[in-house]
């Protein structure tokens, strides 16, 4: 667009009426001049030192809400940054980093977990954090189930406390998976929250919290600012004075701001990131898109013919050209999934031997796929389209969400792959709500969706194969949408949850993978990437490709707390401690 047209929004006036139009033009010019002047001053003022601009969520306006229990509805980083959890799972190293809990221990029979609460941690009103606050927080979640978003109380029977030791007593033996649930519990001060009538609808405008950035300095619909906690329990941290969070509504707008250098830490999906972002300033522009989200799956409704046979599901899987899918739909930002369905999130659990022994039906092999379908009685009719064994036409529909462009492209490739196999599949796009409703009620043939991506394969496979999660068609299921059940998987899952032995857990996890590969409850497509960009012109301390101490993505609570506590203005010395590891116990008085 030529610049001139912008500077004069209307054309030169025609003859005669010169007088009035001239005046209008003059005024417009003056307004413009003023505007430019102000624009000039402003870009200088933005370079304040020790101030970081972050875009963690896409929202075009903010509503003041720092209730840390509602991660998706509260303002970033309420659950992990303003408030803090007991521990943090570091998705890059695979370690559980002690945070407000200094250490923990399971009883030998896995019936009890004892957490030692750190001393010398203070809330922003000066009161010290004690074991009582932890017990209170957990009890609060029991009384108000909406706060218990990971459903800790379906495993925990009661909580008790002795000084700084907090004990969780389980209903049945429960071990490692509890840590993944606990990392998402923000600890709130008992002396404040006990006075709150309804903590579910409490928007907590002035948080009293322990986190590194726990003061709300300014709040408006288009921007809010958080200030440094001067009494933070990790000595010498945090390194920044102020965090600025502008409201940006669209991915495009965020991309422009990132490329422009206005945002220090972002979470945008950027197409051709090397060319449009890194190349602008290779020294300072960084990104990391690790595949740490759950695997994106093609779910086949196992209660609908002919998807109840695992051979059919495997055949569909073999017909999909995942290399192309990843290259075109995902821009090569991830890899093709294998038949275990495990993403990088579970790298430490992945057992390649299972694939060797059971066969990997995610390899692109249309011929075998055709043979399997023929064997299942889904033979081609005279029109070249496959029919159901009873001769009726087979016209499955594949559901996707309107506007989720990467998934839509992936679905289009799948549709083409399956059509090449003679399956008369149609793409159906729905609004997010409608699409998810069909998924929950089991009202679909084939549907794209996500899968669980928490710390252990336990919840991942529970979502895929457990009878506990099974609901009949027509009844809303919050997981196991494909309605698959396996007695063996349930036994393995229970054994996994109860096991306190790392080797045994690995063995059980291998067996779970074997069960999944054997029965193909769902068709894994690709592990979902998480998006993170950093601009190190003003801020240092981000995880780099050489030293990826934690995921770069700013929106993954509580993992981003590991990064938040390491950031500092450029040119200042590194903060004490080892990034991504347990904080040094300097907090003690």
């Amino acid at each position, binding site marked *: 667009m030529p610049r001139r047209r*912008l500077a004069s929004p*209307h054309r030169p006036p025609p003859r005669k009426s010169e007088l009035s139009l001239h005046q209008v033009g003059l005024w417009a010019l003056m307004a413009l001049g003023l505007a430019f002047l102000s624009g000039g001053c402003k870009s200088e*003022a933005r370079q*304040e030192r020790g101030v970081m601009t972050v875009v963690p969520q896409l929202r*075009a*306006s903010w509503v003041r809400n720092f209730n840390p229990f509602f991660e998706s509805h509260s303002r970033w980083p309420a659950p992990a940054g303003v408030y803090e959890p007991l521990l943090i799972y570091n998705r890059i190293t695979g370690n559980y980093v002690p945070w407000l809990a200094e250490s923990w221990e399971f009883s030998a029979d896995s019936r009890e977990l004892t957490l030692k609460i750190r001393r010398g941690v203070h809330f922003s009103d000066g009161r010290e954090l004690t074991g009582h606050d932890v017990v209170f927080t957990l009890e609060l979640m029991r009384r108000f189930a*909406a706060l218990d978003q990971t459903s800790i109380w379906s495993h925990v029977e009661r909580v008790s406390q002795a000084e700084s030791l907090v004990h969780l007593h389980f209903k049945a033996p429960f071990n490692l998976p509890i840590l993944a649930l606990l990392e998402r519990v923000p600890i709130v001060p008992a002396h404040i929250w006990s006075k709150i009538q309804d903590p*579910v609808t409490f928007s907590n405008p002035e948080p009293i919290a322990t986190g590194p950035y726990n003061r709300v300095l300014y709040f408006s619909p*288009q921007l809010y600012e958080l200030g440094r906690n001067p009494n933070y329990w990790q000595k010498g941290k945090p390194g920044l004075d102020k965090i600025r969070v502008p409201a940006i509504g669209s991915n495009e707008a965020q991309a422009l701001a990132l490329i422009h250098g206005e945002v220090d830490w972002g979470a945008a999906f950027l197409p051709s990131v090397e060319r449009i972002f890194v190349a602008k300033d290779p020294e300072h522009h960084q990104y990391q898109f690790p595949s740490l989200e759950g695997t994106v799956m093609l779910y086949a409704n196992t209660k609908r013919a002919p998807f109840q046979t695992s051979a059919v599901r495997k055949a569909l899987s073999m017909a999909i050209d995942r290399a192309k899918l990843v290259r075109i739909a995902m821009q090569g930002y991830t890899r093709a999934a294998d038949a275990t369905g495990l993403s990088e999130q579970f790298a430490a659990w992945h057992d390649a031997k299972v694939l060797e022994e059971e066969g990997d039906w995610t390899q692109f092999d249309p011929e075998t796929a055709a043979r399997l379908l023929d064997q299942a009685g889904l033979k081609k009719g005279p029109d070249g389209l496959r029919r159901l064994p009873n001769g009726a036409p087979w016209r499955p529909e594949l559901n996707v969400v309107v506007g989720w462009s990467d998934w839509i492209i992936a679905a289009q490739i799948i549709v083409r792959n399956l059509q090449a196999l003679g399956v008369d599949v149609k793409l159906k796009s729905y609004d*997010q709500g409608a699409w998810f409703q069909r998924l929950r009620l089991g009202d679909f043939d084939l549907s794209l969706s996500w899968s669980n991506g928490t710390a252990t394969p336990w919840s991942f496979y529970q979502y895929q194969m457990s009878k506990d999660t099974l609901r009949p068609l027509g009844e809303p299921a919050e997981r196991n949408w494909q309605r698959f059940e396996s007695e063996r998987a349930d036994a393995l899952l229970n054994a996994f949850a109860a096991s306190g032995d790392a080797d045994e857990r690995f063995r059980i996890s291998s067996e779970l993978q074997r069960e999944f590969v054997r029965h193909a409850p769902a068709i894994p497509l690709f592990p979902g990437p998480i998006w993170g960009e950093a601009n190190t012109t003003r801020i240092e301390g981000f995880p780099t490709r050489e030293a990826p101490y934690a995921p770069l993505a700013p929106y993954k609570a509580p993992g981003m707390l590991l990064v938040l506590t390491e950031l500092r203005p450029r040119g200042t010395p590194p903060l004490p401690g080892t990034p991504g590891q347990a904080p040094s116990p300097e907090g003690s008085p």
Partner: protein
Amino acid sequence: MIYLLRRLGFYVVAWCVSLTLNFFIPRLAPGDPASALEAQFQGRLDPAAFEAMRVAFGLSDEPATVLFVKYLKNLARGDLGVSIAHFPAPVSEVIGQGLLWTLFLSGLALAISFSLGTLLGTVLGFFRGGRADAIVSSIFTLFGAFPYFWLAMILLYGGGFMTGLFPLRHAYSDGLRPSWSLEFAVDVLHHAFLPALAIVLASAGGWLITMRSSMMSVLGEDFILLARAKGLSQARVMLRYAAPSAILPSLTGFGMALGFILSGSLLTEVVFSYPGQGYLFFEAVKSLDYPLMQGLFLSITSSVLLANMAVDVGLVFFDPRLRK
């Protein structure tokens, strides 16, 4: 007077109809808020917690008629309910914070677009058939054919990103705090320039065409001939004789146009991350946030109806034929 009363009665009826539609139209969309809510969590919410949240968020399975009665009762008390997407903020608070910016932006754009379009239409209609007429009319018609958001994106890219002359987003600079100072006022205008320009470019053409054709029909009237015969100057004939009569259709259209401008402004706001109601609306629809949608519909329909009413009252002063 009777005319005014009749119009008033009409607006009361129209408002009641819009209240009813506000309630039912969102519910015609496929899907349900519970599913949309859960989809937002992308599998990070446990089913038990979800059930509890459903209750907390007031997502009940009661029949629509029962809910409608509740809605009317609450409305009578001025209670618009609690937003789902922005839980637990009340709808009135969510709407309130965006409404002013939307009214400012669309009001500014409407004022500029109306005066610019009408002024150009007057001049071009008066000197119809000239080269200026051909060029200017066709340029504005061309821009009018573009969708708002597309123009907005082009302007954002050209004026904001490529040249850096204008900010890429928001209603004022991140470093500034709202105040009654010249600096802040200039900053707000600087930020409103591109979004307003997008709306003006897309909508001025309509005013121009209406005014131009209306001018042309008025120019054929006898009183214009008389004015010319009296030897009055061109400008006087145009501005004092032709324009006041020709502007009536445009004024009638003003109220109608407000609705279009508002909707266009909503899209433009999304592109420029302008903190108005536009993106709220977008999010509300996406997450099937019925209470927020109702509230937004209500505020928009009410403002359009109010503006129409104001125009109706205004017309009485402009058009003597209505004064009986």
